Each structure stands twice: as C-alpha cells, then as structure tokens.
C-alpha cells in the first residue's frame, strides 16, 4: 500500500512538473529568432510517395511579427506572412489568402504564440527536454488533443541563443525538418 501511495505521489509530481512553464532559454530563443534573419535548409518527407524534397532559402522576421520566407532552390518564390494574411509571389504572380482560412498556418502561429508567452501548453501538448550539447537545448512536443492535433502530431525545437532546428510531424504522415543558420 505504501508503495502504491509512493508511486501515485511520484506520478502526481511528474504531472506537476510537466505542467511547468517552458524554460526561459527556449522562449527567449524563439523570440529572438522571430526578430532576426537566417538562412534555412528544409527537407520535406512526403508520406506514402517516398519523396524527400530539399529546398533552401532565407527568412527575415521582424518585430511586428511579419515574416518574409524566400525560397531560392530548387526555384524562386517568396511568401510574406503576417498574423492576418499570407501572400505568395512566384514568377511575377501574387496570390494572397487570409491566415485564418489556412488551418495549418493558423495552428503554427498559435503554437508560436503560446511558446512566446511561455505559457503552460499542457492543455494541448506534452513536452520534454532531450539531451543536447553543452550550451544548447532540444525540446520535444507531443500534441495530445484539441485543434492542433488535427494537423500536427509532434514537433521538436532545438537551438542555443536562437532557434536552429524545427522538426514537424504532420497528421497525414508528412514530416518537415528546417535547419536555420546565421545569415552570412
């Protein structure tokens, strides 16, 4: 009986720990990344088709929460993302849509927002820190329920002073890995 009580107590303690706010280093790194520029290299694995699509480009984030996402290879295109709209420019043609109508973008924006506020995310995801090199951090989120689970099942963030790696697993089986590097 005492063992049972001990196990339950430990379980509760872990539960309380899991509900702690995100580490400040993570929050600060995300915040800093969203106010600076970087080069990115993206690898996208398309489920079912055995495709591995690689692309690269730059990203410029501003304090007003606008993001300029430029693809350079394998072809050129630009995406201007604000909290309200997303504008796609490719081969001179422009296509603008509202973020609210793009569920996946809206979800990512929401996640980022929650991360920035260092909020308790336990209502939609469990998170744990993973081992990493000295001065670096890596944190893994498993989306458990709610609207976010419709699109994203899990994601990982890693970095040091800034965010360096984002890995996202989507509900349809696709996976995306984006590595950020300082602008030269």
């Amino acid at each position, binding site marked *: 009986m005492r063992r049972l009580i001990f196990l339950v107590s430990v379980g509760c303690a872990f539960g309380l720990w899991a509900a702690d706010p995100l580490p400040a280093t993570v929050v600060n790194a995300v915040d800093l990344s969203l106010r600076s520029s970087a080069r990115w290299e993206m690898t*996208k694995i398309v489920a*079912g088709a055995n495709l591995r699509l690689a692309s690269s480009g730059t990203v410029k984030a501003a304090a007003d929460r606008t993001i300029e996402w430029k693809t350079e290879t394998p072809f050129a295109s630009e995406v201007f993302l604000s909290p309200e709209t997303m504008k796609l420019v490719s081969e001179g043609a422009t296509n603008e849509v509202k973020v*609210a109508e793009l569920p996946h973008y809206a979800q990512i924006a929401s996640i980022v927002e929650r991360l920035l506020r260092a909020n308790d995310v336990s209502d939609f995801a469990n998170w744990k820190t993973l081992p990493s090199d000295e001065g670096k951090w890596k944190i893994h989120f498993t989306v458990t329920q709610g609207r976010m689970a419709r699109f994203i099942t899990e994601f990982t963030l890693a970095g040091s002073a800034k965010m360096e790696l984002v890995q996202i697993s*989507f509900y349809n089986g*696709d996976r995306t890995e984006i590595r950020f590097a300082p602008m030269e």
Partner: protein
Amino acid sequence: MRIKLFHLGVVFGALLAAALTALDILFPTKMSTSISDLIKRDSDHPAAGSVLQRNSDSMVQVIFAAPSIDAVLAAMEQWTNRLDRAIFSDHTSSFDFEAVLEFYRANRGGLVSAELLQKTDEDIVKNRVRSLYSSPTSGLFSFTDDPFGLLDSFVRSLPSSYGAWRMNGGVLTAESDGMGYALINLRLAEGYAGDIGRLPAAVDHLFELNRSLSSDGNVKIYLCGAPIHSAVMARRTKTEINYLSVVSLVFVLAVAWFALRRWQRILFVFLTVLTAALAGYSALNFCFREFHLLACVFATTVIGLVVDYAFHRCLARESWREICRSMTLSFVTTELSFAPLWFSGVEILEQMALFVGVGLAAAFGFIAVYGRFVGQSETEMSVGGVKTTKRLCAILVGVALILVVYGGRKIVFATSAADLYCPSGELMEAERIRSQISGANGGEALTIVCGASIEEILENEEQLDIPSSIVCASRFFPSLKMRAVAYERMRTLFDAGTNKLVSVLGCEAPEFPSAPRSWDECLPDAMRLFFMTDNDGNVFSMIPAAVDIPKDDPRYWTYSPRREINKFFSDMTAVTLRLLGVTLTVLIVLLAVVYRRGCWRIIIPSLTGIVAAFACAALFGSSITLFHLLAAFMLAGMGVDYAIFMNGHGKAALKPVVCSMLTSLVGFGSLYFVSFPLVSSIGLVMAVGLPVSFATAVILCADEKKADDGAEIAASPLGLEILWCMYRLFGCRMLRLGTRAVTLVIWCFSAKARANAKTFTRLCNFTTGLADKLAAMSGGADAPEVIAHDDEDTKKFLSFVNDGKGVLVISSHLGMIEVLPALGGCPVKFHAFMNISRTGAFNAFYQRHLARSDVELHAAESFGMGEMFALYDWLDEGAVVLMAGDRGYGRTFEAELLGRKVRLPAGVFKIAGLCEHPVFAVVVLRKDDGRYEVKAKEIKNTDEAAAEYLAFISGLLAKNRNQYYNWDF
C-alpha cells in the same frame, strides 16, 4: 361504522391510485414539453414541426467571448476537452472534423474547388510542385490521396463563414466591438432533448464548465438554444413552485383544519383531489398517444374546483340531497364551460378539456359515493355575518371596478410568442450576441428544399442562387451531376499532368480516384446534418436564410420558426378567445333555463372576475396571452360555482365558499410569483379574479335568510316570449314539445320544483297545461280542443254561458281552468281574478299578448269595492267571472279538503252568495287523449257554497292528483 366505511373509501382511493399507476407504467405515454411539439400538428406545412424541432430542440450554441481570438480559442479548447461527450456531440469543433476529412478522402472522385477547375493543367501541376517544395507545412491530405492538391482545394473552398462567423481552424470565430468570439454547435444526445427530467442535469454540466473556465474574468461563455431556455426555466420554475407549494400546503392545511376540524375530512379532501388528478391523467394517457406538459400544468387548476366541492360536502349543515342540486349544477356548468375546448381543433386545448372534464367527473362521483361517510357539519360557522361580509365585499368590488375603469382601456391581446416568455438577462444577452453575429444565418428565416432523395435535393439546391456566405448542403456535398463533370476534368488533369509530376518529383504515378457515388448510398448518418425527414418520410434540406425561390414551386418553401410560433400562438389565442365567448354564452343559456331572470346574478361574478383580472394584467403592463384566457375558463367555472352555492344556500354556503376561495387563492394565486410568465399569468388571473368573483357572488347572491314563500315557479319573460314565438310559428304541438324540454331541465335542476310537484308527471302536466293555457287564452287558431262533460250541471252551465246570463265561476287549481275560453261557441267575455303577485311573469306576459282575446285578467290581491261593483256589472252584462276558491288570500277561513286543513278565501264565497247570478264550480281536466273536458257543478245553496264547492273538488281531486297545481296543498 362510519369510520369503517370511510376506511373503505381510503382503500378505494389507494386501489384506484395503484391501478392507474400500474396502467401508466404498462402503457406509458410520451409527454412532450417544447413549443415545436405543439406546432407540429397544426402548421400549414407538414414538415414545419420537424424543421422547428430539428432546428431547436436538441441544438445548443456555446459562444466564447474574450478580448482576443487566441484567448477565446484557448478557452474553447479547455472547455471542449472537459465536455461530457456522452451527453453532447460537437458539430463544429475537432470531434468530427477528422471524420469529415476521412469521408472526403474516401469519396474524393469529383471533389475539386471551382476555382482550381478553371486553371490549366500546367498551372495546377506547377503550383502543386512549388507548394510542396517551398511550404514548410503539409496539406490536409497525403500526397498519395491528393497528388495534385485537388481535394485540398475543395476543402479550403468550403464556406468559411456563417454570418460574421468565420472558419478558423475548423472553429467559427468572429470579432465584434473589440471582442473575439468563438461558436460551437452542440447536439444533445438521444434521450435528453425534450426530456424535462434529464435536461436540467445536462445543462447544469455546461454551466459547471462555464464557471470553471470563466473564473478569471477575461473569458465570458454564453449558452444559447431552446434546451438551455427549457432547462433554466424548468429548474427555476420547479424551485419556485416547490417553495410556493410548501407555503400553500401549510396554508391550505391550516384552513382545512380550521374549517374541518377532523382528520377524516381533511383526508377526504385529499382523496378527492387525488381521484381527480389520477382520473384526469389516466384519461389523457388513454386518449392521447402523446400529450403536452402544459396540458397537465393547466389542468392542475381543476384542484381548485375539486377542493371547493369537497369543502361544501364536508361543511354542509344540510343533507347531501339538499346540496346535491347546487353541486350538480356547478358540475354541469363547469363541464359545459370546458366543453367548447373539445371542438377547438387544437390538440393541447382538447387535452386540457379532457383532463379537467374527467378529473372533475371523477371527483364529483367520489364525493357523491363517499361523501356521506364524512357526515354533516355540526358546528355553526363563524366567518362573520353576511352583512359584514357584504360590506367588505362591496369595498373589494369597488376596487375591482376602479381597476376595470383604469385598466380596461389598456387591455391588449398578445400576438407574439415573445409576450409569453421573457428569458433572464444573461440568456437574452446570449441570444442577442448570437443574432448580432450570425445575421442572416441566425435561423430567423429558412429556405427548405424538398426532393425525393438527397441527390435530388442537392440538384434542386444547386439551381438556386445562394450567396457564398450561406452555409448549405450542396456546398459541402456537390450533387452527383456536378461531381461527374468535375471527375471528367480530373481525368484530363491526371492524363496530362501525371508524367510531369513524376518527372519533377521522382515519385510513382499517382492513383486515379474512383468514380463518384451517389450520396444517397454513402453519406453516413453523422454527415446528414443538413438533411432531415418529416413524419411522412419526406426528405428535405434546410438553408439557414431566405433566398429567392421560384414561385409556386413545390420543391421550395420558406419558413420562419419565429413567425410560425407567433402565428400559432396568435391563432390559438383567437380560438381560445372565441371559445371563451362560446363558454360564457352556453353558461348564460343554461343558467337562464335554471334561474331565469336570476341567471345574471350567477354569471356576473365570473364576468366581473375575468374583466378585473384582465384589467389588472393590463395595468401591470402585460398583454392578455393564451394562458390568461385559459385561466379565465377556470375562473368562469369557479365564479359560477360560488354564485350557485351562495344563491342556493345563502349564509350556510358562506363558510365553504370562503374556505374554498382562500385555498384556491393561495394555491393558484401564489403562482403569480413564479418567474415563468406562462405560469405567472395563470396566477395573476386567479389571484385577482377569485376574490373579485367571490365578492360579487356574495353581494349578489348571499341573503341572511333565503326567501321561500312557496310561490309558484316563475317563468322568465324571455322564455315565455320564446314559447310564444314557437306557438305562433309551429302551433300548439311544438309549443308543448318546447315546454316539455324545459320541464325536464327544471326537474333536473330545481329542487323546489321537485319538492312542490312531487312527481314528474304532475310537473309535466302543469307545464303542458301552461302551453295550452297560452294558446287558449290568446284565442289562437291552434288552441287545444275543449269538450263538455255529459252531465246536467255542465250542460246547464254552458247554456247559461252561451245565453249570456252572467255566470260566476269558482275555479280551482285542479286542472287548467284557463283553457275554458277555447270551448267552442263561447261568445262572451271572460274576467279572471288571479293572484298576480305569485305568477307575475305569466300575467305580465298575458297582459302583453291577450289584448285581442276575450279574456281579461284582474289582480285578486287588490280586490276592493271598485272591483266588486265592476264584477256585478260584468255579470249583468252576461260575462263569465272566474275566481279561484281553493287557495287563501285576503281574509280566509279554515276548511278540510281530503282530510287536510286548507285555508280558503272568504271573499269568494261571500260574493257567490250576493251576486244574484248563477254560481258554478268549474274544473277543466286534461284527458289522456290530450283534450280538455269541462265539468261544472252548480252551487245551489250559496250559503253553503264552500261546502258544495269542496265536495265537488274533493271527488275530482281524488282521481286527478297529478292535475292539482296548488303547490301549497
């Protein structure tokens, strides 16, 4: 012995309750509670009820409000995570979103956005490749399921707004006045919707969630929809009625103990009420497959009448036989007052009438059978004198009249359902926000599209010009015809684009989707949100806005639930108002038959109570609703009841009536304090109407001592005029038929008539004689046949009459002397002295109509010297003068008739000795064949006129008791 018999009654009550309860369990009946249940059988369109029910009964809208959309969404997620999904299913958040995506994936053939269809194959392929490479996110579907992003484009093209609500990650959100809102539509699980027993607990769960999440003050959560209103009102009304019931019960018990003093009598009252309630409820169970809760709520008012009867039975100091007449009359009038509801054609009104009718009949039967076991009251009442009570009542009626004067002008009848129900501030605020943001999609007006199948409905919908902001079935489920066109376009794309896609991406050739199927075959139940089936099996879809539809096209119709509900209540109010008019008319006619001119005293208390109650409601700013009118039926019955008892029993009825009024007043008047307007309106009518009716009844009907001078039963002038018209139009036979019908009613409802006449035959002979008298004295053509008896004295009498010798006839109340003028060949004038004060109505009638006949009536009461000289003159002129000799008025002397002491008028026999003209005792008797026969006996020795007269009368009276109409004898 009495106690044992009373126990028998208790056992009877218990057995009745057990039997009826068992029947209720064996044959359960559904009790409906919502407004749509009322409408479904009475709407213009057979599907209207289904639409309304589908649209309101089980749907709950939850609106989250916070300073930002993100805060709203966060709160909404926490809220939905804690939602009990065994009670509520979700239609707009994540619970079924995955199922929708999976459904589309399985049926992707032909599902492409119209925008994408217009692009070239090359553009589609190019955009898809670029999107795959440059976007860090993925589509809604896997590459193998949706290689060209066609299905993704279709899902994104679905209506993303609902009024001002916009689809935000599968959730409807809106921004207004600097606040963010999110909306979730919940559906109640089977078994909760419409079940007033389970619904409050389900809704409490939602309120509990709200409390737990809105404690920080930033987030406000509103609940809308019919189930919320039903549950909140049911809970609140139940609580209030529980409190009021305790107060009422204590008061009623106190009154009952004060008045009855014995527990057996209190138990008797309780058993009477129980019998009424069980019988009424059982009748509803057996006659209706489904009945409405409102019928039961209203029908509880029958308790007021039943308690009244029980009090009268327990407190009567007279025998059951003596109070039976008043109670029977009250019972009949009440049943008749509710009878018109039977013919209303509105089911709920029929249910109310059935409950009250059967409940009252059962209670009456119970009182009649078991009432004798409670015995008669031995104590004198102590509610004060009639005069004091009358003074107090006069003050009350005066106040009521002031109410009527000031409020009467403001009486307005409600035409909108909003007048029947006013929700609490929080619920109103929730509905306001929902309506404000939902706009055209708020369900104020609907367009219904009919069809033989789902595919046909979709095709019919696609023919309409529906704005893109309106959510409708065909947008989510394009018809097979539309998908077939798109499917062919997909085929060309796959043919042309597959190679390019394969070469650029290095993937395998994607699989071409299978051909689209009819939604009738593959649409799962969960996806049939837009489609519904009415009671006749017709399928239709519902567009939540009024759109342009072809005129007179049976495939389309527009529908407004609010308008439909308003129309229903407006129609029902009009029907009920008419029925109330019919009820009051029926009551007046019935009471006129029984009370004649006195009927106004009986009906006026009810009318005063009703008008005062309506005026009071108007002063309080309320419109007169259906439920005020329904309570007026009850008030009509109770007002008449008070008046009948006060009129029939005077002071003796005061205590039972006061007790009954007080218990009803507290029991039903307290309902005024219930916040549910429907119940409150019944309470107001009863709280104001009952005391006013009672006070008016006391003023008009209560006497210190009921007058009972043994006068003949008077007739109402109106009734006699009706009989006269019948006679003039249809002749004497029809006249007799009419009088016999009246006789039957009088026999049933007039204890005095029964007591005087002793036998029905005697009363019937009397009234038939009245008809014949009317015909004979009027000198009409269809007068009854009168023949002379074959004896010497009669022949002599006739010869004297015909010869104009002037004959004094000492008549009697044996037979009908008034038909004498109808004897063939009577050329002379008749002068009849009658006691006009005792038969005022008849004589006034004769005075009006007999001017053209040869009969003149004179008042015997005012017989003086002038009349004496006139009498001699008439005799000298050869006329016949009639004076009754068998009933005393003026100076009288005692004589013996068939062994009984009677008082005879001395003056008549004195005149007989002095008049110097032939004097005859004459009787006109009705024979079995309907003819009348004149028998005369000459009074030869006028000094012994009385003795000869009595001898003649006695001989005939012994054989013709049923034709003797001297009620004093």
